[in-house]
């Protein structure tokens, strides 16, 4: 049987269980006297064990088995876990995780599990000896099984001399011989009363039961029938009835007896990532072709063609909605890895941190979620490392000793906001102002930094290394990474920070990357797409009075100053002088606005977002490109970059 086809399914499911283990361990660690999480932990590890055994991953199976044995002691006795045991289980979970990943990659030989196995066995021994009546052996019996009750209408088991002596030898390779022996006894009981079972039923279940058993059977069935009946219990090597040994027929694989089925149906409820991506690409092309069809239909003015075009348009929209839905993934799939990380980091830094996650069920396109891991990791690390104070410092500030970090996802109409908030010391702006003045982020005379300016300083590449002495050392690197990644995803970052109270970073992202509605703007003979998510309105240049604010041209829109960006100049578009009356597209992101001046509006349409390899020097105002209905590429403007 080819197992490789199951490897991905194994990996995906094992990862899920291992992630659940982390959550359950954290829960257990918070309250070691509550055995609640143990059952779930046991089940998760047990499932991984069973799957790994099936895949033939011996190392994974072995470690999982030891963890399971240790957990089983707690499951059974419900005594509180020591700090030491929980730490060991965390490490064991990590080792198991690594073993899973390496095994799937075919790198089983690199596994070094002896140490963790020894520790687990050691701990199991200690826990077992501490527990009254505890056993070190693996997975002891939950309730002592009652021995098969001899059906003895003629009297109690005290009449062993009656009936024929039957001896059964199980195949040496038979697993769980005790269970098999029980099935043999069951079969025997279907023929008549059974007495004097040796070894005794409890001994049959012992690990050292060798597979030979004997009993007396009170039955008139002929020896051949007795034998045939007992063999039906499976894994029977030899049956001897009444002292006369009956040699068994040659074994044959039962699989041969079963007709090979012609239909193999797959019942996966998971879909391979790559298949989803491929499907998305196809839908993308379909949307492009649909756009072309609509254009042609409009030119033809043929009602029949029009009807088909409209129908295709509707069908492809439905298809698109479905496929986007299939790509949606709840954020917990990413968020669940952070509690453990925060805990480890807090321990390492000797801080007390309560970590809260909100909005776990919010969904994002899988492709976006995959890109969020790194930025969030940086921001969370910063929150614990630089935001949250030590318990002593917090007390001096009149705060509770335990700091709080909150990771929250909130759905806003067409975007999702993910925030990382801490109630720590906040960012000391006076320390950063100097640097901001030097870098020209603010004017030399500036006395204060806005949140926005602060973010821009923090996001400067290399900021942190230069300012390592300050209380925000390290922030820059993370913010830099996060900001770049958000740009690439068509998202933005916002920062709010208050000295002594804490900081909050908000990442705003489109719900899906793949297909967005966009305004198509013309500049000279070039076309650019602007996702509608960030377009708040369009106005006409000339109707709104232009002024100059801080040296920049701006318009005043309902008492708010909106600086203008002339796309023609920004992008260096060649060509004839633009008409006097031109549209201004007002983009807004995280409370900041800008008016983008273009030559003309070419309409609205759905565009398929594609990435392109931006050569060196490419202006940092594009989040990707798309293919228009006529097959020619157009670049997509990034609102964040324009602001």
């Amino acid at each position, binding site marked *: 049987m080819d197992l490789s086809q199951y490897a991905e399914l194994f990996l995906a499911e094992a990862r899920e269980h291992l992630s659940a283990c982390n959550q359950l361990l954290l829960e257990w660690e918070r309250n070691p006297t509550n055995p609640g999480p143990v059952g779930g932990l046991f089940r998760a590890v047990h499932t991984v064990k069973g799957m790994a055994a099936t895949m033939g991953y011996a190392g994974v199976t072995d470690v999982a088995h030891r963890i399971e044995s240790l957990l089983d002691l707690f499951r059974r006795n419900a005594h509180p876990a020591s700090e030491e045991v929980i730490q060991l289980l965390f490490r064991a979970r990590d080792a198991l995780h690594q073993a899973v990943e390496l095994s799937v990659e075919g790198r089983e030989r690199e596994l070094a599990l002896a140490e963790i196995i020894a520790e687990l066995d050691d701990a199991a021994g200690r826990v077992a000896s501490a527990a009254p009546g505890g056993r070190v052996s693996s997975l002891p019996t939950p309730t002592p099984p009652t021995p098969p009750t001899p059906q003895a209408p003629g009297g109690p088991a005290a009449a062993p001399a009656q009936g024929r002596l039957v001896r059964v030898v199980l195949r040496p390779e038979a697993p769980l011989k005790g269970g098999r022996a029980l099935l043999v006894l069951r079969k025997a009981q279907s023929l008549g009363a059974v007495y004097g079972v040796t070894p005794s039923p409890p001994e049959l279940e012992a690990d050292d039961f060798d597979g030979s058993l004997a009993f007396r059977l009170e039955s008139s069935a002929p020896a051949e029938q007795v034998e045939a009946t007992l063999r039906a219990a499976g894994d029977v090597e030899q049956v001897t009835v009444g002292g006369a040994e009956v040699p068994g027929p040659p074994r044959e694989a039962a699989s041969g007896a079963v007709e090979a089925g012609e239909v193999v149906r797959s019942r996966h409820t998971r879909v391979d990532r790559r298949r989803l991506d491929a499907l998305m690409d196809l839908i993308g092309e379909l949307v492009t072709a649909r756009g072309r069809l609509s254009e042609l239909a409009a030119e033809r003015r043929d009602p029949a063609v029009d009807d088909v075009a409209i129908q295709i348009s509707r069908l492809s929209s439905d298809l698109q909605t479905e496929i986007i839905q299939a790509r949606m993934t709840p954020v917990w799939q990413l968020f669940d890895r952070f509690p453990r990380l925060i805990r480890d980091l807090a321990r390492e830094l000797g801080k007390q941190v309560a970590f809260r996650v909100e909005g776990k069920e919010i969904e994002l396109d899988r492709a976006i979620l995959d890109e969020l891991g790194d930025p969030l990791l940086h921001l969370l690390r910063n929150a614990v490392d630089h935001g949250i104070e030590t318990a002593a410092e917090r007390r001096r500030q009149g705060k509770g000793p335990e700091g709080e970090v909150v990771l929250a996802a909130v759905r806003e109409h067409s975007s999702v906001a993910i925030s990382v908030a801490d109630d720590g010391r906040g960012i000391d702006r006076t320390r950063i102002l100097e640097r901001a003045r030097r870098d020209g982020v603010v004017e030399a005379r500036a006395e204060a930094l806005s949140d926005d300016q602060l973010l821009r300083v923090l996001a400067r590449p290399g900021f942190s290394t230069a300012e390592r002495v300050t209380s925000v050392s390290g922030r820059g690197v993370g913010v830099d990474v996060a900001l770049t990644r958000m740009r690439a995803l068509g998202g933005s970052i916002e920062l709010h920070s208050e000295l002594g109270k804490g900081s909050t970073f908000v990442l705003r992202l489109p719900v899906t990357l793949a297909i967005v509605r966009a305004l198509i703007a013309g500049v000279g003979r070039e076309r650019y797409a602007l996702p509608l998510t960030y377009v708040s309105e369009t106005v006409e240049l000339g109707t709104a009075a232009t002024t100059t604010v801080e040296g920049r041209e701006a318009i005043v829109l309902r008492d708010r100053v909106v600086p203008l960006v002339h796309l023609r100049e920004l992008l260096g578009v060649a060509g004839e002088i633009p008409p006097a009356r031109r549209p201004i597209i007002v983009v807004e992101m995280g409370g900041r606005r800008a008016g983008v001046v273009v030559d003309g509006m070419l309409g609205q349409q759905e565009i398929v977002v594609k990435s392109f390899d931006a*050569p060196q020097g490419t202006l940092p105002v594009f989040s990707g490109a798309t293919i228009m209905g006529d097959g020619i*590429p157009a670049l997509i403007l990034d609102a964040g970059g324009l602001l």
Partner: protein
Amino acid sequence: MSDAGIVRLLLFRVGGLTWAAEATMVREILPRLEPTRIPGAPRAVAGLINVRGTLVTVVEGWRALRQPEPPAGTQSGSTVLLQVSRGRKVVGFTVDEVTDLVSVDGAALDRRQALPGVDPSLVQAVGRRAGQLFVVLNTDALLTPILAS
């Protein structure tokens, strides 16, 4: 390229010279397509084209090879899709004309040679065909710096 053995080369003309690229690096030859400009990109980058739904960056051959600009109005020519960075990326390269696909003995090619007006780091070898010189390009050395992001 090995010193010995048969090497297959795609010959093409850009400006006044004939150039060659190893056929194993050539993915496809397309007619010249009008690219979409990428603002801010180096001058040698012509822009993006759509190759069956995939966006491909195109490098203007005459600029990259420092050849004279073709006279205005000659919009014919071809775009050769080349694999760069060990096959990880595909890049378009505009040429005036694809002239031939030839098999030559690797031993018959001269290792890197100084040629007037040609950056020696781009020259992998020099060969001759029907008395005419052709320059075997190190396409990675030519395209990678232009496209570095």
